[in-house]
C-alpha cells in the first residue's frame, strides 16, 4: 500500500493519537491502537525480515500469533527481544525495532544469494553435509548465516512474578463464544469465573468485523461482564499450558505492551498457575495458507488478515487484489473489500462448484470468478506484481490449459481454517479429523473441559472446504509449507522417499513446524502432503503432539522472584549477626548460610584455616554448630525403634550417656551417622549430619507410619529450636567454667561421650561431650533465641584464652587429621558399614536392624569392596620400596584415583584431602579396594597426569591414642570473667525482619504470643479422648482453630496442635499443661524461640500470599478462624486467618525469617 494514506473511518485505531517509532533506524508514524505490523503496513514497509535458511524476503503475512514473516528484534541493549511477531506488538511511542536475519539490512541482504542454491539445500542438507570432520567445526558458521535474531547479552532488567489463582470455571478466549460462556457460568453467584483474553482488548474475531451490530454487541456484553463481581477478566493473558488435573498456566503482559520500563515498580509479566474446576476453551481458529509455487512472496497474505487490517486498522492494503481460496470464507472477504471500494481483480477458487449465491454477488461487485482454477506462479521483486493461474483438471490431479496472467499488488489466500486445539490436545483430549472442513476438531476430552465456538469447529458460516495440500502437476520445489524455516513440499516428499513414516520423525527431519510457527499454519498442510506422499489418510498419519508452551514464554517469567539471593530458601544461624561482625566468609551449606572461616584483614583462605586449626589445637575455638540435625524420639517403644534404626546397640545405652551410631538404608548403604543420646528411659536425642535432619526425619516417619505401625514412638525435629555451639580445645573446660551454671564440668563428673542437661547463665542448656576435632569439646545447646547471647558470652569468657572463632572449612581439616568419617564425603552410594571397619561391632549385635539382611547378599561379601582408609603421600625422590619418608610438599585433591595394582583403571579414590597445619603435610582419606587387608601397602595415586606414590594407613593421623580428649592444662591466676548479670536471660534480639509497608500490604513481625506445641505419642487418635477430658475442651480438627480465653489452639498434624498464649505466659501455660496431662502419653514443648510469626495485612494480602502458596485463600474456602499447613515460597509454614479482615498470621522456622522478609519484599510488587 502507499505510505501516508488516510485510514478508513470506524476502525479501532485512534487517529487523534499519533505515535512515532523507529524501524531499521528510520522514523515512522502510526496511531494508538495499531500493532507494529499494521503501522509498518501503513508506512509501506513490505520487507520486514528474512527467512531462516534461504534468506528469502518476508513481510507481514498474518494479523495475529500465526505470523511467521514479520519477525523483529524489538528494542535494544538489555531490553532487546528477538523473534517478536510484529503483529502482536501494540504500538507505543518511541518503539524501536529492527528486521532480523539479514546483513546489512532486510532490503539488501547479502545472504539472499543462498536463495539461488535452494535446490542443493534440501531438508537433510545439514545432516548430510556437515558430517566431516564434525558438526562442531561448522556450527559457528552455520549459526551466523542461519539466524533467528540475537539474544540480549546483558541480564534482564525487568522483574517477573508468579501467582496462583483458583476458579470454578476458567474461560480461555474473549471472543464471542468465550464471552457468552463466561456470562452463562457467572449466573451462579458462587461460581468464580476467570476469563482470559490474549489481545489488547477482548473481542476476538469480532474486532475484525465490518458489521456495526457486532461491535455494538461486543460493547454491550463487555459492559455486562464488568457488572458481574464473580467474573475476573484478565486481558493480555495467554494461556500457554494445559496440565494435569485441570491446572493451567498463563502469561500476563503487565507492562511489556508499554515498551521498556526501566526501574518500574511493576513486573513486566506475571506467570499464572490456574487451578480450575471446569475449563471452557474458546480459542478460535487459525487460517491456513495454500501451498503453491512461490507462495512465500511479500504481498501474499492470509485472507482473514487482509479483512482484519481493513476493518480493524482501517488500512487498504492494495490497489488491485486477487483472492485465492479453497473455501467460502475468502469470498466474503473479497466481497467486503469490494464494498470498501478496493478493486478485486478476481477470486481464484480450486473448487469447480461454488455456491451460486457467492458467484452472483461477486459478479455484481465486478469480481471475476475463476472456479476450478489454481495459482501456478507469482512474480514481483520485493512485492507482488503478477499472479499466474491455470485450470485444474477434472480429477484435480493436474493443471491444464493455458496460463493466464493477472496483475495485482496483493494476493489474499485461504487454505481453510484450523481450530486452535493446542490446549485441548495438551489436556489429553483426543482429536478427530473432520473431512468436510479438512481439519482436526476436539474429540473425547480427558479432563473437565468444554470446547466452544470455532475452536470446536463450529463455524458461523459453512466453509465447504476442499483440500488441496499442494498444487498438482508442478514442481514441489518452490511450494512453501513452513515459511520461516523454509520447508517446502519437496522437503516433506523427500522425507517420505527416504522412508520416514512417523509424523514426529518427519517433523524433526524436515524441521516443518519447528520454527516460531510451531505448526500453527504449517502442521495440517504438512500432514496433508505426507499423507499424499505415503498414500495414507490424514487420520492414519496422525498429528504431532501439542506440548506447552502454546506461545513462547519469557524465561524470566518461569523464574519469577526465585533469582539471585532468593534462588532457593536460605537459613540463617541464630548468631548470624556475630559472624557477619567478625568478617566471616559465608557459604551455602545444606541451605544454611554458614561461616567457612573468619579471615583477618588481608589473610588468605589457607592462612586463615591454618590459624584457626592451630587455635583449636593449642588453645580453644568456638564454632556455630546449629545446623547439626537434632531429632527427639520418645515413647515406650523408642529404645526398640532406635535399636532397629542403628547398626549399633541402643538397648544398653544408659540415661545420660551418648553413643556414636551409623544408620543404613534397607539396601545396607550408610546414609547417616551421628551421636545418639539417652535423655530418659523413653526419651532420646538423635544427632544427624548437618542439613540431613529433615531427610532422616522423613525416613523415620516412613518406617513408623508405613511399616512398624504398632510402635508407640513420637519423632520431633527440633533442629532449629536449639542453637548449638561447639567449644573445642584444651582450654574448653576452663572457658565454659566461667559461665554460671548448675552442671558439674569436672573431668570426673562429666566424661567423654556423656550428656548433661541443666542451666547455663539461667537458661535451659544441653551439653554433650563428644568430639569431632579430636580436642576436648563441649557441644552446647540453648533455645535458639539465646544463641547469639551464648556466642557473645563464650567469646568474652574465652578472650583471655585467645579463643578463636572457626568455620566449617577448619572443622573439616581438624576432623580429617583425626580420620573421623564424614558421611557423604568419605562414603558413596555403595558404602556399607563393614567398609568402614564396623564388621566386628555389628557381629556382636543380636536382632535385626534396617539394612542388615542386605549386608549378607553377595555384593556385601565381596572381598574387594572399596574400604575406608588413610592415605599417606610418599616422597617421589626416594626409592619408595625401601624408604618410608613422607613427602611434606606433595598435594592431592579429592577425587584423585588410586590406581589398580596392574596400573590400569581405578581401585578407589581420595575422598578427603587437605593440608594439615598441625602435621605440616597433606593428610588424605579415601575409599580403596580391600584397603583393610592392604594396610601398609604402597599404591599410586593418579593426579594431574602423574602417579604419586602413597601408602595405605590407618585413617587417624593425629593423636591416635585420643589422649588429648583427657587433657586438662593448668590455668593459673585467671579471675573469672565478669559477665553482665543475667546475661543470657536478657536475650539479644535475633536479626529482625525489615518490615514492608506498601499500598495495600503491610508486613511486620508479630511478637504478641508465645507458642506451645502439644503432641500425642504415636499421633494415636485413641488417646485424644483422654486428652480432651484432661483439658476440658474439644481439640480442633484439620484446618480448625479453637479459642479458649486468650489462647488459640491450632491443628497442625494428626495428634499435634500448636497453642498461642499472650507473650510471657508461655512458661506458666506449659507447666499447667504438663500438670493436666501428666498421666497421658503427651508432650508439651515451648517453641516460641524456634519460630517467627509474621503479621500480614492489607487489601492485597491474598494476592501476595497467592504468589507463595497454591492453597485457595478465598474467604469461602479459607474462612476466618481457620488455619492450614502448607508450602509457601518453597518452605513449610502455617497460615492462620484470625478475623474477617484482610489479615493473616504466618508461622515459620525462625532460621528462615530473613529469607521470608526478602521474599515478601520482592513478591509484593504491585501489578
Amino acid at each position, binding site marked *: 500500500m502507499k505510505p501516508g494514506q488516510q485510514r478508513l473511518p470506524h476502525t479501532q485505531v485512534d487517529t487523534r493519537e499519533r505515535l512515532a517509532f523507529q524501524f531499521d533506524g528510520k522514523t515512522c508514524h502510526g496511531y494508538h491502537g495499531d500493532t507494529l505490523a499494521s503501522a509498518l503496513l501503513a508506512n509501506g514497509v513490505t520487507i520486514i525480515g528474512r527467512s531462516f535458511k534461504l534468506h528469502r524476503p518476508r513481510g507481514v503475512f498474518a494479523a495475529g500469533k500465526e505470523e511467521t514473516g514479520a519477525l523483529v528484534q524489538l528494542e535494544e541493549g538489555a531490553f532487546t527481544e528477538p523473534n517478536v511477531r510484529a503483529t502482536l506488538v501494540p504500538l507505543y511511542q518511541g518503539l524501536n525495532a529492527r528486521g532480523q536475519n539479514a546483513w546489512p539490512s532486510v532490503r539488501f541482504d547479502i545472504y539472499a544469494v543462498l536463495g539461488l542454491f535452494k535446490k542443493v539445500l534440501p531438508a537433510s542438507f545439514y545432516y548430510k553435509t556437515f558430517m566431516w570432520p564434525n558438526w562442531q567445526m561448522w556450527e559457528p558458521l552455520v549459526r551466523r548465516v542461519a539466524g533467528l535474531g540475537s539474544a540480549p547479552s546483558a541480564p534482564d532488567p525487568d522483574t517477573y512474578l508468579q501467582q496462583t489463582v483458583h476458579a470454578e470455571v476458567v474461560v480461555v478466549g474473549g471472543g464471542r463464544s468465550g464471552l457468552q460462556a463466561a456470562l452463562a457460568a457467572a449466573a451462579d453467584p458462587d461460581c468464580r469465573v476467570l476469563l482470559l483474553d490474549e489481545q489488547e482488548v477482548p473481542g476476538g474475531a469480532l474486532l475484525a468485523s465490518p458489521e456495526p451490530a457486532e461491535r455494538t454487541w461486543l460493547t454491550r456484553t463487555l459492559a455486562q461482564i464488568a457488572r458481574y463481581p464473580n467474573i475476573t477478566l484478565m486481558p493480555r493473558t495467554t494461556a500457554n499450558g494445559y496440565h494435569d488435573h485441570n*491446572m493451567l498456566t498463563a502469561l500476563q503482559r503487565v507492562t511489556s505492551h508499554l515498551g521498556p520500563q526501566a526501574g518500574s515498580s511493576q513486573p513486566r509479566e506475571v506467570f499464572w498457575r490456574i487451578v480450575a474446576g471446569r475449563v471452557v476453551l474458546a480459542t478460535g481458529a487459525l487460517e491456513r495458507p495454500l501451498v503453491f509455487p512461490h507462495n512465500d512472496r511479500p504481498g501474499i497474505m492470509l485472507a482473514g488478515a487482509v479483512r482484519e487490517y481493513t476493518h480493524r486498522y482501517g488500512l487498504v492494503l492494495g490497489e488491485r487484489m486477487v483472492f485465492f481460496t479453497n473455501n467460502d470464507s475468502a469470498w466474503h472477504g473479497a466481497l467486503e473489500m469490494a464494498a470498501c471500494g478496493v478493486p478485486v481483480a478476481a477470486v481464484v477458487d480450486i473448487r469447480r462448484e461454488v455456491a451460486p449465491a457467492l458467484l452472483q454477488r461477486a459478479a455484481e461487485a465486478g469480481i471475476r470468478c475463476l472456479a476450478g482454477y489454481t495459482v501456478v506462479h507469482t512474480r514481483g521483486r520485493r512485492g507482488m506484481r503478477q499472479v499466474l493461474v491455470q485450470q485444474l483438471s477434472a480429477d484435480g490431479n493436474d493443471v491444464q490449459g493455458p496460463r493466464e496472467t493477472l496483475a495485482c499488488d496483493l494476493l489474499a489466500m485461504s487454505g481453510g481454517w484450523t481450530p486452535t486445539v493446542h490446549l485441548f490436545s495438551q489436556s489429553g483430549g483426543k482429536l478427530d479429523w473432520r473431512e468436510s472442513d479438512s481439519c482436526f476438531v476436539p474429540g473425547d476430552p480427558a479432563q473437565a473441559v468444554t470446547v466452544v465456538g470455532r475452536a470446536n469447529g463450529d463455524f458461523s458460516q459453512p466453509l465447504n472446504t476442499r483440500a488441496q495440500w499442494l498444487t498438482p502437476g508442478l514442481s514441489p520445489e518452490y511450494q512453501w509449507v513452513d515459511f520461516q524455516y523454509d520447508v517446502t513440499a519437496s522437503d516433506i516428499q523427500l522425507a517420505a522417499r527416504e522412508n520416514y513414516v512417523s509424523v514426529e520423525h518427519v517433523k524433526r527431519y524436515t524441521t516443518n513446524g519447528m520454527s516460531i510457527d510451531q505448526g500453527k499454519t504449517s502442521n495440517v498442510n504438512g500432514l496433508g502432503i505426507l499423507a499424499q506422499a505415503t498414500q495414507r489418510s490424514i487420520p492414519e498419519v496422525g498429528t504431532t503432539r501439542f506440548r506447552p508452551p502454546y506461545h513462547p514464554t519469557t524465561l524470566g517469567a518461569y523464574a519469577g522472584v526465585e533469582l539471585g539471593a532468593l534462588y532457593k530458601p536460605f537459613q540463617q544461624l541464630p548468631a548470624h549477626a556475630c559472624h557477619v561482625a567478625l568478617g566471616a566468609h559465608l557459604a551455602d551449606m545444606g541451605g544454611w548460610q554458614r561461616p567457612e572461616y573468619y579471615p583477618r584483614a588481608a589473610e588468605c583462605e589457607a592462612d586463615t584455616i591454618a590459624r584457626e586449626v592451630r587455635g583449636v589445637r593449642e588453645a580453644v575455638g568456638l564454632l556455630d554448630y546449629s545446623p547439626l540435625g537434632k531429632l527427639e524420639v520418645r515413647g515406650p517403644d523408642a529404645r526398640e525403634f532406635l535399636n532397629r534404626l542403628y547398626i549399633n546397640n541402643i538397648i544398653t545405652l544408659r540415661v545420660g550417656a551418648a553413643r556414636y551410631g551409623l544408620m543404613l538404608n534397607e539396601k545396607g548403604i550408610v546414609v547417616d551417622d551421628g551421636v545418639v543420646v539417652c535423655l530418659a528411659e523413653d526419651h532420646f536425642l538423635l544427632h544427624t549430619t548437618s542439613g540431613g535432619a*529433615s531427610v532422616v526425619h522423613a525416613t523415620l516417619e*516412613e518406617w513408623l507410619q508405613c511399616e512398624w505401625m504398632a510402635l508407640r514412638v513420637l519423632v520431633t525435629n527440633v533442629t532449629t529450636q536449639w542453637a548449638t555451639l561447639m567449644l573445642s580445645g584444651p582450654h574448653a573446660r576452663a572457658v565454659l567454667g566461667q559461665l554460671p551454671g548448675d552442671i558439674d564440668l569436672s573431668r570426673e563428673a562429666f566424661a567423654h561421650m556423656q550428656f548433661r542437661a541443666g542451666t547455663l547463665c539461667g537458661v535451659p542448656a544441653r551439653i554433650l561431650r563428644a568430639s569431632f576435632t579430636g580436642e576436648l569439646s563441649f557441644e552446647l545447646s540453648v533455645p535458639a533465641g539465646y544463641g547469639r547471647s551464648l556466642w557473645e558470652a563464650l567469646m568474652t569468657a574465652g578472650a583471655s584464652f585467645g579463643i578463636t572463632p572457626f568455620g566449617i572449612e577448619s572443622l573439616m581439616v581438624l576432623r580429617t587429621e583425626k580420620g573421623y568419617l564424614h558421611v557423604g564425603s568419605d562414603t558413596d552410594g555403595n558404602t556399607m558399614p563393614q567398609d568402614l571397619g564396623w564388621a566386628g561391632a555389628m557381629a556382636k549385635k543380636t536382632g535385626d536392624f534396617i539394612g542388615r539382611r*542386605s549386608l549378607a*547378599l553377595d555384593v556385601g561379601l565381596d572381598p574387594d569392596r572399596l574400604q575406608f582408609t588413610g592415605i599417606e603421600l610418599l616422597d617421589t625422590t626416594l626409592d619408595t620400596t625401601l624408604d618410608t619418608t613422607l613427602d611434606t610438599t606433595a598435594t592431592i585433591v579429592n577425587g584423585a584415583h588410586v590406581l589398580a595394582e596392574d596400573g590400569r583403571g581405578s581401585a578407589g579414590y581420595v575422598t578427603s584431602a587437605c593440608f594439615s597445619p598441625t602435621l605440616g603435610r597433606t593428610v588424605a582419606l579415601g575409599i580403596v579396594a580391600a584397603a583393610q587387608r592392604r594396610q601398609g601397602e604402597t599404591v599410586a595415586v593418579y593426579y594431574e597426569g602423574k602417579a604419586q606414590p602413597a601408602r595405605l594407613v590407618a585413617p587417624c593421623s593425629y593423636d591416635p591414642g585420643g589422649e588429648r580428649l583427657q587433657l586438662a592444662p593448668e590455668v593459673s591466676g585467671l579471675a573469672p570473667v565478669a559477665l553482665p548479670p543475667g546475661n543470657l536471660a536478657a536475650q539479644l534480639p535475633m536479626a529482625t525482619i525489615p518490615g514492608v509497608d506498601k499500598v495495600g500490604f503491610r508486613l511486620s513481625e508479630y511478637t504478641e504470643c508465645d507458642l506451645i506445641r502439644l503432641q500425642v505419642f504415636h499421633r494415636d487418635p485413641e488417646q485424644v479422648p483422654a486428652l480432651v477430658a484432661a483439658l476440658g475442651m474439644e481439640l480442633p480438627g484439620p484446618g480448625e482453630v479453637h479459642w479458649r480465653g486468650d489462647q488459640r489452639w491450632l491443628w497442625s498434624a494428626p495428634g499435634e496442635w500448636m497453642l498461642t498464649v499472650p507473650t510471657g505466659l508461655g512458661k506458666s501455660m506449659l507447666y499447667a499443661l504438663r500438670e493436666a496431662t501428666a498421666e497421658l502419653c503427651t508432650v508439651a514443648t515451648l517453641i516460641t524461640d524456634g519460630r517467627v510469626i509474621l503479621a500480614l495485612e492489607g487489601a492485597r494480602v491474598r494476592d501476595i500470599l497467592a504468589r507463595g502458596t497454591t492453597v485457595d485463600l478465598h474467604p469461602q474456602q479459607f474462612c476466618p478462624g481457620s488455619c492450614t499447613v502448607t508450602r509457601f515460597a518453597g518452605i513449610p509454614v502455617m497460615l492462620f486467618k484470625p478475623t474477617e479482615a484482610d489479615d493473616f498470621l504466618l508461622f515459620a522456622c525462625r532460621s528462615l525469617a530473613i529469607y521470608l522478609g526478602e521474599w515478601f519484599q520482592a513478591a509484593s510488587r504491585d501489578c
Partner: protein
Amino acid sequence: MMRIECPWCGSRTEDEFTCGGQSHIARPDPARASDGEWAAYLYQRDNPKGLHYERWHHGFGCGQWFNVARHTVSHAILAVYTMSEPKPELPDVPGDKA
C-alpha cells in the same frame, strides 16, 4: 501439576508431596528370606500402564504418609486411603491419554 487429596489436609498441589513409590510391599522376615526373596523386596517393582498403588508423603503439610491409586497414563487419582486401610479393589480403566 497434579492435585492430591491428602486424607487430612484436603486437596493440595503436587509440590507439597513426595512420592515414596509402590505401596503394599510386605517386608519379608530377614531371618528367613532367601537372597532372591530379599532382592525382590528391595528392587522388584510393578511398572504398569494403568493403575498404580503408591504411597505419598505430605511433607509440606501434616507430615503423614498415605496411599494413592493413580493411573499412570492419565494421572487420574482413583482412590486415596490411609496406611491402615486395605488396598481397594478398583477396575483397571484403560489409558485415555497416550
